[in-house]
Structures are given as C-alpha cells and as structure tokens.
C-alpha cells in the first residue's frame, strides 16, 4: 500500500477529504483489501458518533419521508458482474461515473448523478458507452484539472481534463430536461469552430462523455436543441466552460 495515500484513511472515513482525494482513496481501497477492512472498521466506529446526536425529528419529516418512498423506485441489487473488482459498495459509488463525478469536484452533484444514474437507464447506457475504464483513468490522473459551470435552467457542467492523457471528461447533470421535446447537446469549441460531442435523448438530464484530444479545445459548451441535435449550436449556450 502507498503510505502517503493511506495516511488519509481517518480523514476519508470522517468525510473530511475533498472529492478528488476521495476518488483517489476509493481507488486505493479497491487495490488494498487490508485497507478496506480497516476503513470498514473505522467507519463503524465513526458512525457511532451519530449516537451522540439524537434529536426528535419534526413529525412532518416522517409523513414526508413515507410519502416520498411510496413513489420512489428502489435500485436493483448490485449485479455481481465483476467479482474481480472489489468496489467499495458501502460508498454506493457504482464505479466510474460516480467516481467520476466525485473526482470532478462537485460534491452535491455526486448524489444527484447517482440518483439519476440508477433511475435513468439512458444515463447508464451513456456511461457504458463512454468507457468506464477510460473515464476512471482520466479522472484519477495526477494532473487532473476541473472546470465547472452552472447550467442555465439549473444544474451543472463539470469538465475534468488531463493533459497527460490528452483527454477530458464532460459530466453534465441538469435539474430538469428541456421542454418541447428538445434535448441537451454537448459541444467542444476547437479553433473557434463548434464540434458536436453528441446530443442527449429527450428527457435525459445527465451525461458522462469523454473528449479525446484536447489540442485546440478552448471551450466545452452545452446547448438546447431540437430532438436529435443540430449541426451547429443554437445560441445562447446553456453553459460555456472555458478550458483555456
């Protein structure tokens, strides 16, 4: 095990690390069974600290939670599809896309994307298409730089780039899908020309997309387009993340 990263174990268990450190530590745990066992034990101890914070919740909480679960679909059990990969299931981080978002420095987005991912088969397919291993490799690069911008209409676009890999990952999560059968479309701007990085499906609000080759890429943009996407971006952009 790497001693340097392992020194973060206590901070990791206490959720006192930032998102990039968390992603790195998650990777460390995947590679080190002994460390995983220690993390589990210390998490057990840390969770007991919640015993020290007991407070009667307002009655409305019970009613609201019960009402919410009545209309909330549950996630399917984790499919033991890759036993070789001891994912820290405790973290509820289902591999790359979640590690991805965690690494990208968007703490609140992590959950949102998880939520969406498990509910949204499209997003899952999307993520599979983008290549989880590639996403993970980029997001755990030592030279990772993240850029973030709010999305007009609510949501966030995070672009994480690694010059070492000469690649980046676009992570988009919108609060709502565009109306009127319109869709989000992702763009890179290279030498002042917009290149489509693909349109999302109608109703789709999250995307994980790898950009290969960063040479000349100055911006990553998001626009709202008619179903199927457009050849050229419809302005104004819903988000324009400057990389340069």
């Amino acid at each position, binding site marked *: 095990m790497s001693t340097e990263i392992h020194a973060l174990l206590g901070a990791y268990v206490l959720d006192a690390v930032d998102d990039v450190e968390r992603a790195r530590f998650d990777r460390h745990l995947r590679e080190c069974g002994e460390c995983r066992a220690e993390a589990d034990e210390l998490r057990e101890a*840390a969770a007991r*600290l919640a015993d020290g914070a007991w407070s009667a919740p307002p009655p409305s909480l019970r009613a609201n939670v019960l009402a919410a679960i009545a209309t909330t679909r549950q996630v399917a059990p984790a499919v033991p599809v890759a036993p070789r990969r001891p994912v820290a299931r405790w973290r509820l981080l289902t591999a790359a896309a979640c590690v991805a978002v965690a690494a990208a420095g968007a703490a609140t987005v992590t959950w949102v994307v998880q939520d969406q991912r498990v509910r949204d088969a499209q997003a899952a397919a999307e993520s599979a298409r983008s290549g989880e291993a590639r996403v993970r490799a980029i997001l755990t690069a030592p030279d990772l730089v993240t850029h973030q911008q709010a999305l007009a209409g609510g949501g966030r676009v995070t672009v994480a780039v690694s010059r070492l890999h000469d690649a980046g990952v676009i992570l988009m999560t919108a609060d709502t899908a565009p109306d009127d059968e319109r869709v989000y479309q992702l763009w890179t701007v290279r030498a002042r020309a917009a290149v489509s990085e693909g349109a999302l499906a109608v109703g789709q609000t999250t995307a994980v997309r790898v950009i290969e080759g960063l040479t000349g890429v100055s911006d990553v943009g998001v626009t709202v387009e008619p179903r199927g996407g457009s050849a050229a971006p419809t302005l104004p952009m819903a988000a324009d993340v400057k990389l340069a």
Partner: protein
Amino acid sequence: MAERGIGRRPDHVSMVPEAPADPADLLRAVAGGDERAFERLYDLVAPRVYGLIRRVLRDPSQAEEVAQEALVDVWRMASRFDPARGSATAWIFTIAHRRVVDRVRAEQAATDRASRIGTLVADTPYDVVDDEVSGRLERRQVRRCLDDLTELQRQAVVLAYYQGHTYPQVAELLNAPLATIKTRMRDGLIRLRDCLGAGVRS
C-alpha cells in the same frame, strides 16, 4: 370455553407484538420493497439521522430537508447494503453523513465557513445536542469514549464529523500541521473503535 379460544379473531393474531426490530433484518425487508419495515426502521434511526444532520447544519429547516433526502436514500439504496461490510445502522449513518457533508460543502463554495465559525468551535463537542434522550446508554458510551481521546484527537474527529470540516480546515482551526491532523483523525478513530468495542450494534 374452548369455543372462545377457537373464536379468537384473526386480527387479534396480527396484533401479537412484533419481534424486537433488528435494523439489518429490517433493511433486508426494505430492500424487498416492504414499506412497513421501512416505517419501523425509520422509527429506529430517524432521531439519530435527524440529530446528526441538524447538529452539522444547525439550521432546522435545512436539516429536515437533508434528513428527508438521506432517509429516502436508505429506502432507495437498501439493496446495496452488504452486512459483510458493517452494521445496518453504520451504513445508514454513513449515508446521512455524506449527505450532510455534501450540503455543507455546497454552502462553503459560497462562503468561507472555516473563518466564519472558527470562533464557535473546538471546545464544544456536545453543546448543540438536544437532550430528549440524554440517558441513553449508547450516548453515554460515545461521550465517554470521546473523552478518552487526547485533546487533539478528539477535536480533530469532532470538527470533521460534527462540523463537516475537511482536514485542511481542521488543521487551520486547530493551528496544527496537516500531517498531524491526518494522523490524529486516524489514530483517534482507532482509539474510539477500541473503546466502543469492535462489536457492531444497533
């Protein structure tokens, strides 16, 4: 007489007191979509989930919102609970803690919380806890075990867990080197684990 015995109404049978609830069993039932089990689980853990979140956020209305998110997560993600990795309650509080820390960090993006509350913290690990159930054994044990830590260990653990600070923020608040804080967090938790007894409890 015998007739009376035979004539017991079926609903009487269903009113047999339920077995003491084990959170892990409940969580398994919840994973199968059992809303009744979820209600029982809610009653077992909601005061701690809410208490923890309220303690970290300090704002009751926000606390209620985040607690709702966390508890609905428990319902949604129940099938992902793995008893081999730890107890059901720890799994639930881990979800709750992540949720509230996410909220704190989101707010920190706008304001530098460390400097804002730097003067409030450090010496008051128990101050804001509501006292409805002050006699609970678990609470006494946690308190005793926290007191068993060195001062720096205790502060490092408490500032991270109850205030949602990152370790660099804790280092700044305690005016200690980063490496020291990382170490104190880890050995503080190890001591806490040893004091609480490695046993998993509900």
